[in-house]
């Protein structure tokens, strides 16, 4: 098997717009906001960029398809731009494209941009969209909370955990993320909440209430990647390198085969296994310093703790309630508030996660700064439990 891209690609700079209901900004404004921070951080000129990847999910709501939205918004120097889309893993997919181009030696400086403008629909929640001409004929007219709520029903049944205890653990997930977001200046939702508020909130899709669901936000995030050599030439010390990037799509098992129990995400398990191997991580519970996972809903984060190998099967509720994933716990999760509170502009989320890990590893997280983190994990779960695209990436200091 190939050795992967571990330590072959360095993140030279990153940027992230403020997330939220950005009534004042269109996608081109959000991209520019993230890019200005990123290019300054990278310390290169715009004309030094040789290729770019643009991640957008809802082209009907954000920007149109193709290379043009990014090329035109940033007035790029007519370099190739590849527009990618892989559900909620879209931002990570853009970064993967740019990283692979640098690792392949095709270019020295590549840009990965993720953006989403969701608040142009006129209603709350994510936009309605077709699931495909065949799928629309038979699949339920689900919403994301309803599709992910399925995990809760199955998890409670599979592990014999009473729903009220599961709901308490799910509530802790949200309370923790809200507490973390208070210190994240660019986050969408920055108010601390209580467990009781979560439990008392209106039902969205049983058993998920309002506070079990992540924010629907506008935003953009981006990264400029280069080779370790170029980073050194530019005088970059303690550079943050990509240790692993793995992407695992479903192939139909969760949708059609009875082997899936409905209580976990097999794609995440496989992506984690491959990512740990690529990064040389043997004991993730000891080696991973922080995680930014796809907490689109509280139950998703809970289930992911097991799928990423951080909790034993059936024990995630206990570990969560014990504070293992709190800011001061063994493996802090969502130190910037996660999708839950920082927000979830779909195409930007994977890059926003990388932005937080990059910021923490660079020691520039301010009041959110963790003590000497060395490896950070990001995870996306695009789609729904029945059919999804999981990505697991690991970032760490170059050479460590």
């Amino acid at each position, binding site marked *: 098997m190939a050795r992967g891209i571990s330590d072959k690609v360095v993140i030279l700079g990153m940027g992230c717009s403020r997330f939220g209901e950005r009534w004042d900004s269109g996608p081109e404004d959000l991209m520019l906001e993230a890019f200005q921070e990123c290019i300054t951080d990278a310390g290169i000129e715009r004309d030094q960029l040789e290729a770019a990847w643009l991640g957008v999910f809802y082209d009907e709501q954000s920007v149109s398809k193709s290379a043009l939205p990014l090329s035109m918004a940033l007035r790029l120097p007519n370099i190739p731009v590849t527009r990618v889309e892989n559900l909620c893993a879209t931002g990570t997919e853009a970064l993967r494209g740019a990283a692979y181009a640098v690792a392949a030696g095709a270019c020295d400086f590549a840009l990965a941009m993720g953006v989403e403008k969701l608040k142009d629909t006129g209603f709350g929640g994510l936009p309605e969209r077709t699931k495909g001409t065949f799928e629309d*004929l*038979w699949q339920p*007219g689900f919403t994301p909370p*309803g599709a992910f709520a399925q995990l809760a029903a199955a998890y409670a049944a599979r592990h014999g955990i009473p729903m009220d205890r599961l709901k308490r653990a799910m509530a802790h997930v949200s309370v923790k993320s809200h507490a973390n977001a208070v210190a994240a200046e660019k986050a969408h939702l920055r108010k601390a909440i209580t467990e009781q508020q979560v439990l008392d909130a209106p039902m*969205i*899709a049983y058993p998920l209430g309002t506070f079990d669901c992540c924010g629907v936000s506008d935003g953009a995030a981006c990264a400029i990647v280069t080779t370790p050599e170029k980073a050194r030439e530019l005088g970059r010390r303690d550079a943050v390198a990509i240790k692993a990037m793995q992407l695992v799509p479903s192939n139909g098992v969760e949708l059609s*085969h009875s082997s899936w129990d409905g209580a976990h995400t097999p794609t995440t398990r496989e992506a984690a296994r491959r990512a740990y191997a690529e990064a040389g991580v043997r004991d993730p519970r000891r080696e991973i310093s922080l995680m930014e996972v796809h907490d689109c809903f509280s139950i998703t984060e809970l289930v992911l703790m097991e799928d990423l190998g951080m909790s034993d099967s059936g024990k995630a509720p206990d570990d969560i309630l014990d504070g293992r994933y709190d800011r001061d716990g063994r493996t802090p999760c969502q130190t910037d508030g996660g999708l839950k509170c920082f927000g979830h502009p779909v195409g930007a989320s994977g890059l926003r996660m990388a932005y937080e890990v990059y910021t923490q590893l660079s020691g520039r997280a301010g009041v959110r700064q963790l003590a000497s983190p060395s490896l950070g994990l990001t995870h996306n779960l695009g789609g729904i439990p029945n059919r999804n695209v999981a990505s697991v990436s690991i970032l760490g200091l170059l050479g460590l």
Partner: protein
Amino acid sequence: MAGISSLGCYLPRLRLSRQTITEAMGWLGQGNSRAKGEIATCNWDEDSLTMGVEAARIALSALPHAELDALTFASTTAPFADHANGVVLATALGLDASLRVSDAGGSQRAGTSALAAALAGADGGRASLVVAADQRLGKPGSPQELQYGHGATAAVTGTGHGLAEYLGAEHLAADFVDHYRESSALFDYVLEERWAREAGWNPLVGRAVGRLLGRLGVQAAEIDKVVLACPAATARGVLKATGLRGEALVSDRSMEFGDTGCGHPLLMLAGALEDAKRDERVLVIGFGQGADAILLRATGERQAVSFGLQEALATRREETHYTRFLAHQGLLPVEFGMRAERDNRTAQTVAWRKHEVVTGFTGGRCRSCNALQFPLSRVCVAPDCRETDTQEPVRLAELPASIKTFTEDWLAYSARPPLVYGNVLFEAGGNVFMEFTDFAPGEAAVGRPVRFMFRIKDVDSRRGFRRYFWKAAPGLGA
């Protein structure tokens, strides 16, 4: 010997009490005296076609190896004027494409006329499925609103031993208009009941019955059961005019579920045959621009069989909101929010390519690894198999299954919130992610058995189309 080999009855699970209607509409001063009992009413995702499929499934369940030659779908409220409803029904039932399929309608006599035609053709050895269903709407505040229920009945006719032997039929065509509904209209225009009774039912039914009994040499007093789908006063008049015995009158069950339209005589026939003794003579009357009179002799072989009626009565659930009933029938514009604006245009090219998979609910069983799967596809989904072109089509609608995961979604658009959906696990293996129907909030649970029902999946109001798929409903006895 031509006759009826099997019957199936279906009523929607929802019942609206007449009290609920008059509480809402009684201010008009009409119909208070009738405010007893209840009517069966379609859920938002039911129509004549879906009810017809369910009735047919019940009728066919008693004859798993029936080889049908013809299918007639009779309805005055068929969803499509030009798109063969009977063919949708045949596809949903997984029947052979060589079947002769026809739609019938035109009057409340459509059900009995279709049954008589099938019985008359049965002597030639032809087996037929006759399905009669109606979802008639009563204008709010009208007597019909209190009277009309929704339901379907199916009959399998053929030769050989069955439920009832066919003795003969007579027909009378007469353009007597006691009510009518223009093709594009929602509601019937109904004239005075006393006139309909005295100038219509009594003489016209009387002539048809008189001709039939005379030809067969049967005395009116020898008729043991009479099926007359009409108000009680009308029935009394007909009995008097024809000399039929009062005690022979079969209950029209209108207190329990209302008058279910052109299938109602067949539904009453099912009720009559549930407890008919051997050799009892059963007279079935149909009325509408004339009359049908069909005489049958019960074999008594299927005594105490319910034909689905007992289940339909046992699983009833009260519709507590009159306004929700109106909304489901399309009679009350309701703000469902912007999510309801989703475009449900059907790609007919895909619908045709996948009609057996979707309408027929066809999965595949892999010849190589035996894994059952939905949808049927070219490459096996089993992780250890993934062989290509190894799947045999399997009809999934009748397979036992239970809930693996579920939610009640208050955010998603549903004409009857919450939208309930989830993963359903087949006992024989395989998983399907689908909508549920007829579940009340709190009724779904992991592990609960379900049965599959043919329902409206989406309505495309912009283009006047509706598409169908199967949904998981609470299992009987679960």
